[in-house]
């Protein structure tokens, strides 16, 4: 158990090192002249030279990488030239909106996805099952940028029930959250259905029923709890889907989060911000999945990693 925790910590640390190497390669090695890229257009040559010196661009690559990592650890991701402020602060300012959107989407994903999956499994072969399967297949096939636009068209333009952009009240959150949740919700519904079906066929479920447990207790306490472990893994991996999906969803709904920030940053060629968002989102992903793996041992006492 302790060895497992240590191994996962070590692996996560290695992954984060890899993340920093990849970002370094994409933004420092590939462009050829990164100092020009990291400064606004028309910056004076003296500024370019100064940044070249700071980044150590005349040094060999491994020294440049060391300088890069040291500045990342100090929280110095460079200056956003679009906002004229430290890039890290610009990104962290927007993180809240993305977290809010992602959490709302996560609630929908789990709430609706698990319910659909459980109902489909318990009522296997009925209309409920087919309806939930169709919903799940659609959720995985409709592109979220299109789904978002269609929701705007229906609820914003035609019915005028909900606001279609902005960040003022909980009503602004509904359409983006539904859009972002569609894909992971579908995945969770399908996974819940198949693992519930497998578990409902096991002996201990029959024993539970035979000893007169209420069907509700059998399904919720015994079957669903066993289905929770694979679900948790998938949910951890879906953090990536949510962060990535936020890029598009936030752009469609003008939601002022990290995703919209990075898209805008590209058009302003604000690379310090791009670099910060990349590192931050990968770090969030790695840490959450580490947490999920460690949570297993709590949820499922049978799992004891030796």
């Amino acid at each position, binding site marked *: 158990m302790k060895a497992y925790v240590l191994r996962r910590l070590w*692996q996560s640390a290695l992954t984060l090192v*890899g*993340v920093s190497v990849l970002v370094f390669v994409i933004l420092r090695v590939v462009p050829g002249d990164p100092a020009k890229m990291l400064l606004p257009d028309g910056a004076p040559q003296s500024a370019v030279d100064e940044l070249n010196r700071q980044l150590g661009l005349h040094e060999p690559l491994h020294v440049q990488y060391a300088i890069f990592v040291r500045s990342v650890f100090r929280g110095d991701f460079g200056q956003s030239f679009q906002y004229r402020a430290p890039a890290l602060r610009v990104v962290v300012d927007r993180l809240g909106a993305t977290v809010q959107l992602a959490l709302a989407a996560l609630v929908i994903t789990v709430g609706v996805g698990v319910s659909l999956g459980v109902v489909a499994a318990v009522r296997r072969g009925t209309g409920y099952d087919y309806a939930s399967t169709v919903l799940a297949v659609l959720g995985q096939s*409709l*592109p979220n940028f*299109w789904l978002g*636009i269609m929701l705007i068209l229906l609820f914003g333009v035609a019915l005028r029930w909900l606001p279609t952009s902005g960040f003022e009240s909980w009503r602004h959150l509904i359409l983006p959250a539904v859009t972002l949740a569609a894909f992971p919700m579908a995945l969770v519904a399908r996974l819940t259905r198949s693992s519930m079906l497998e578990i409902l066929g096991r002996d201990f479920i029959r024993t539970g029923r035979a000893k007169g447990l209420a069907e509700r207790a059998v399904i919720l306490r015994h079957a669903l709890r066993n289905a929770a472990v694979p679900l948790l893994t998938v949910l951890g991996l879906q953090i990536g889907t949510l962060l*990535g999906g936020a890029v598009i969803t936030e752009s469609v709904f003008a939601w002022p989060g990290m995703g919209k920030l*990075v898209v805008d940053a590209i058009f302003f060629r604000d690379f310090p911000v791009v670099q910060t968002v990349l590192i931050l989102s990968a770090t969030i992903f790695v840490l959450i999945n580490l947490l999920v793996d460690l949570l297993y041992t709590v949820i499922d006492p049978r799992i004891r990693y030796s």
Partner: protein
Amino acid sequence: MSAPAAALAAPRVGRLSPPALVGGVLLALVVLASVLAPLLASSDPVKPSFSRRLAPPWGLGGTPAHVLGTDNLGRDILARLLHGGRLSLALAAVSVLIAAVVGIVVGLVAGSAGERLDGLLMRAADVQLAFPVIMLAIAIVAVVGTSPGALVGVLALSGWVLYARTVRASVLTIRRLEYVEAAYTLGASDLRIIARHILPNTIAPILVLGSSQFATMVLLESGLSFLGMGIQAPRPSWGLMLAEGRDYLSNAWWLATIPGIAISLVVLGANLLGDGLRDLLDPRR
């Protein structure tokens, strides 16, 4: 699913479930329509014609000359849809192929080479998975530009991990099977074992992956084009058409609606086909 069992199941591909057949036919139809685009589309997909801007589809106030209506520059939407499909589907197909080849090679190497190289390659896979694909794609496209070549590279880069992991797992399982150990004992070379025993056993799961990944690639490419980081105007692309249609939601809803339906149909087709193949090849079902 154990790979040898999957290979045994491969000849049953003819017995696809009805939804999978529907998916396959759907996909085939869209591919065919895109391939035949120059024959099917009578209008120029790129040349603007301001006199016939924003014509609604036929049957909704439009004319049979423009079955799906025209866009904000008076271009025939059907023509743009067909030509856009050509580009989107070709990009997706090439990316899936490259991702599969790279992934298979990495998987074979990781599964056959020593523990250290294996560890290194699998950590590389973890790193790749740590980034939301679209963010990584955006960063790369921002640095290297939006040429179709760069797009294929970005898409392929996002896809190799799945193949590598699948092939690696197959290699590790198959290497321990008795007949493979027997072949080793008889003096078969590593290459021969890979070519004769391991690769044929991984074909089935790779087909399944490829089919579902085609859907992902189409979504990713149209997503990037939607954000303005994929195929550039005036070239027709489904994602780009959708983005252009956003500004006309209140007076010309079909601009954004129609390309989205096209994307959805392709993705739906590939997903249904992929699911069907998986069910067919999974011996547990």
